[in-house]
């Protein structure tokens, strides 16, 4: 009757904490797919991705009480999922995917340029150009720590370098990005 009331993610997590299976199912409907999609970009073993998503929701079922209701459920789930994936991939470096930072010509045709600009403009401003100019070592650190939300220690584990190296690289990458943002860019605006 009428419009169904929209239950927030946080309310669903609270219901899961009380042992509500349908709430868990609803959260899986909302968040399972994009977690799959995001994880498969970081690991090319399909089985591992499925297991990590399963682990994540089983952890949600057990630890729903621990969710602090000041953050987003999606970000919280991603934190659980990616940390599990990192610890699982410690011994399996062969399936770790490092994203490709070079734009392929085919993709440039595929992506409408206006769309590209809106997307990157809205989310990052000139950051996109700055990110593309970083060296591969710096990019992977920025990806792991800034975009994927790992601690420097976890990022070191994922990338196979020491924590201090991650810190140094991150520091330098941020400095480079800062410069890139303050300099007027050619071809942008």
């Amino acid at each position, binding site marked *: 009757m009428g419009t169904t009331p929209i239950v927030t993610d946080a309310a669903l997590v609270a219901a899961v904490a009380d042992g509500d299976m349908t709430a868990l199912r609803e959260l899986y409907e909302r968040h399972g797919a*994009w977690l799959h999609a995001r994880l498969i970009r970081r690991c090319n073993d399909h089985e591992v991705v499925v297991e990590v998503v399963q682990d994540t*929701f089983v952890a949600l079922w057990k630890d729903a009480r621990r969710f602090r209701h000041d953050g987003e459920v999606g970000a919280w789930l991603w934190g659980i999922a990616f940390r599990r994936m990192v610890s699982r991939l410690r011994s399996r470096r062969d399936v770790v995917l490092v994203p490709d*930072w070079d734009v392929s010509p085919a993709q440039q045709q595929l*992506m409408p340029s206006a769309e590209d600009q809106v997307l*990157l403009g*809205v989310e990052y401003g000139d950051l996109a150009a700055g990110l593309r100019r970083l060296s591969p070592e710096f990019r992977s650190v920025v990806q792991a720590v800034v*975009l994927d939300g790992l601690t420097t220690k976890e990022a070191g584990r994922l990338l196979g370098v020491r924590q201090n190296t991650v810190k140094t690289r991150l520091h330098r990458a941020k400095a480079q990005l800062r410069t890139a943002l303050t300099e007027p860019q050619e071809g942008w605006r």
Partner: protein
Amino acid sequence: MTTGIQGWHAHPALLSSYVAGDLDAVAGASIEQHVSRCETCRAAVGQLLEPQVLEQTWTGIRDAVERPALPFPLRLARRCGLSEPTAVLLASAASLRGAWLVGAFLSLSFATLAAYASGGTALAPFLLAAPLAPVLGVAAAYGPRQDPLEALIATAPYGRTRLILLRTIGVLASVLPVTVLLGLAVPGPPWLAAAWLGPALALVPVLLALAGFVGPRTAATVVSLVWSGVVLGSTRAFAPTWPVEAAQQGVYLGLAVAACAVIAIRAGTDRQPGVAL
């Protein structure tokens, strides 16, 4: 470009190339940042993935969530790195159940109490019971009569030797700490608390080697009788600590080595797993 975050949604073509893995890192990362905060685009990503994969994942989640929690000892064994099937097999051993452990603990307590009450002159009850507790525990841990899972184990492609050794370790781990603690309460020289470990650890391989020939029941009976004979016989002629003194410990060590050799040789000559035990 004044489109706000709320009003903007990723183009379907963009999302499908994201899901297909065709986007480079910067575009992929911006999609990810957007999708993690945009309900509409999350739903759109859901439409692009294979439903079977999502359903397969959900089945796994539901099974894990609905499965009843394992009893505490099993969870403990899992923490120690055993797989779940192994933990279940381990815990099904009769001598690892609560009743058996309580029985062992009580008889050892009485033996300790007797030694304590006599002021250290009668160590025989403790020396008799302490090494036999792990031996009988190991004997009760396997064999057709004692094992509720025997039919399953006999037909499963699971190494019997491995199972028996695993259960032996389980029994030793559950009985030895308590016995060591009780041994500390026994009056007499301080080394006594550890000295009984010699015969205890020697009798276990002897039992396993014997059981390979005559079955666990008979082997347990023989070992118990022999050990009782040694302890009780020594009370007439020697000091109360005689069964665990240095010279005798050497004999136990020799026995243990010989028993292990017998097991190893029998396991080596017959390749069928578990035949030696």
